[in-house]
């Protein structure tokens, strides 16, 4: 369609003099928007009051959205690398805003399945497409600091909820009437606002010209052992042990983080405040979200200096020590130590997300790093299901067997430390990718593998 030709990959190549520091703003405009998903819970109570749906039923909307985030990131990664970031960002904006609009329709006609299809499925596709769309572009613009660049974008995903939460509450207060909680018009407003916000990213994003490199930067003559200058195609990457080791590294790091994130509020109340300081607990949760966000930028930037493997080793070793220490903070009656431990734990949870794209780039090259990242995000979906289940099950089992509520967290913490030990072993087993997996075909301008005629095989024995 000629109307949408501005989305073409060829129209996205940057003109000489384009400042690469505009690319993180394009990425942030997408990630700050889709990060709204983490604030969906602000609609739970109003929806429950207005429509009479159970809170556990409404909880499915967020869960389905995260599942479809993983599904779409895995399915559309290769398409993204072929069509370029602009078309993918545009598709993400349409799906994400469309999800709100269909969701608003569902609320208006009192249909939960339509809400689920809208925000959960269509919106979830927007989340997945948006999440991976700027990753490989940022890595191409910042070959000297890939961790910092992707960390900045993924920090936006962590920070999106900070904007969405007060914005949504403000809009609902504005639209609330005697008979309505104002959720549907809030959804429509958010659709319009986020679509405009994301379109800024669509128009700003550019791919570097062939052969471009940062002023004054030359690639190291002898890159570190784990960093490759070759490329691996996405399907081939999934045949390497490195991909699956990183899958477990991400899954276990996220499982441990999600497991305690959901328990943070009751945990601090039951261990220290006798269950009656909800405001302080809410403040604690806010502090953790801030740690999660800043950790995404801080740890990913640090990984450019100390290396990805060392960064994840730090997450797992320090994480194990902190998880094992947390139960003792209750015995020491030290809220400060408890808070500090959790702030560091949550910063490493965020850092796990933001450092992984650069780890993938080190191992598999830049050619299809966005697509490989998309496939790896299935680890997040798996952790999103198993983490909370594991923590809730262990806690309920202990309470049913007579353990005091305040003491029931200890076993959970020790179990999380064990999960991190497995993650540490997986990380230590990561070695450079065997050269037999390297892509040997031609690469199109902009960094995508050359398209093959139907039925043809890619050089190097790799089928597209």
């Amino acid at each position, binding site marked *: 369609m000629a109307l949408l030709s501005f989305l073409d990959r060829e129209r996205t190549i940057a003109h000489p003099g384009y400042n690469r520091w*505009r690319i993180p703003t394009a990425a*942030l405009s997408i990630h*700050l928007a889709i990060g709204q998903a983490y604030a969906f819970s602000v609609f739970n109570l109003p929806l429950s009051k207005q429509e009479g749906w159970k809170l556990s039923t409404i909880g499915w909307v967020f869960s389905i959205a995260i599942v479809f985030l993983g599904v779409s990131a895995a399915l559309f990664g290769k398409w993204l690398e072929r069509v370029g970031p602009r078309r993918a960002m545009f598709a993400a904006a349409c799906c994400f805003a469309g999800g709100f609009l269909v969701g608003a329709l569902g609320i208006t006609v009192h249909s939960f399945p339509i809400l689920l299809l809208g925000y959960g499925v269509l919106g979830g596709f927007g989340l997945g497409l948006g999440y991976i769309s700027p990753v490989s572009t940022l890595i191409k613009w910042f070959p000297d600091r890939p961790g910092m660049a992707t960390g900045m974008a993924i920090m*936006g995903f962590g920070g999106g909820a900070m904007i969405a939460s007060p914005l949504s509450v403000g809009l609902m207060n504005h639209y609330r009437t005697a008979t309505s909680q104002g959720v549907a018009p809030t959804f429509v407003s958010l659709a319009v606002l986020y679509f405009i916000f994301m379109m800024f990213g669509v128009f700003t994003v550019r791919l570097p010209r062939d052969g471009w490199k940062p002023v004054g930067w030359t690639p190291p003559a002898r890159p570190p052992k784990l960093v490759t200058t070759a490329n691996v195609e996405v399907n081939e990457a999934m045949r390497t042990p490195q991909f699956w080791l990183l899958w477990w590294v991400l899954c276990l790091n996220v499982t441990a983080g999600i497991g305690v994130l959901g328990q943070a509020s009751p945990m601090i109340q039951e261990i220290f405040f006798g269950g009656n300081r909800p405001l*302080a607990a809410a403040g604690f949760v806010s*502090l953790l979200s801030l740690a999660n966000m800043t950790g995404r930028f801080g740890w990913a930037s640090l990984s450019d200096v100390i290396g990805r493997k060392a960064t994840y080793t730090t997450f797992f070793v320090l994480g194990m020590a902190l998880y094992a220490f947390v139960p003792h903070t209750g015995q020491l009656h030290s809220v400060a130590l408890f808070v500090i431990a959790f702030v560091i734990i949550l910063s490493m949870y965020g850092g796990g997300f933001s450092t992984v794209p650069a780890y993938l780039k080190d191992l598999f090259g830049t050619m299809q790093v966005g697509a490989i990242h998309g496939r790896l995000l299935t680890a997040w979906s798996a952790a999103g299901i198993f983490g909370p289940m594991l923590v809730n099950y262990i806690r309920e089992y202990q309470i049913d067997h007579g353990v005091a509520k305040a003491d029931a967290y200890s076993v959970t913490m020790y179990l999380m430390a064990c999960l991190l030990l497995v993650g540490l072993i997986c990380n230590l087993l990561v070695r450079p990718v065997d050269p037999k997996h390297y892509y040997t075909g031609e690469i199109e301008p902009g960094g995508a593998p050359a398209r093959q005629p139907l039925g043809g095989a890619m050089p190097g024995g790799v089928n597209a």
Partner: protein
Amino acid sequence: MPELMNAPADRATTGEAAKLWLSWLWVGIPGVWGVYHVVVDALKIFK
């Protein structure tokens, strides 16, 4: 990040610099607004 603050002379056109700063304002203003709300919330832990 001197590169961000002061683009090399061959590309430090007024238009390009303005676009750069407008871009950061576009994402920075809502970002700071969000962080402000979280910090206010987080301070409640000490009350």
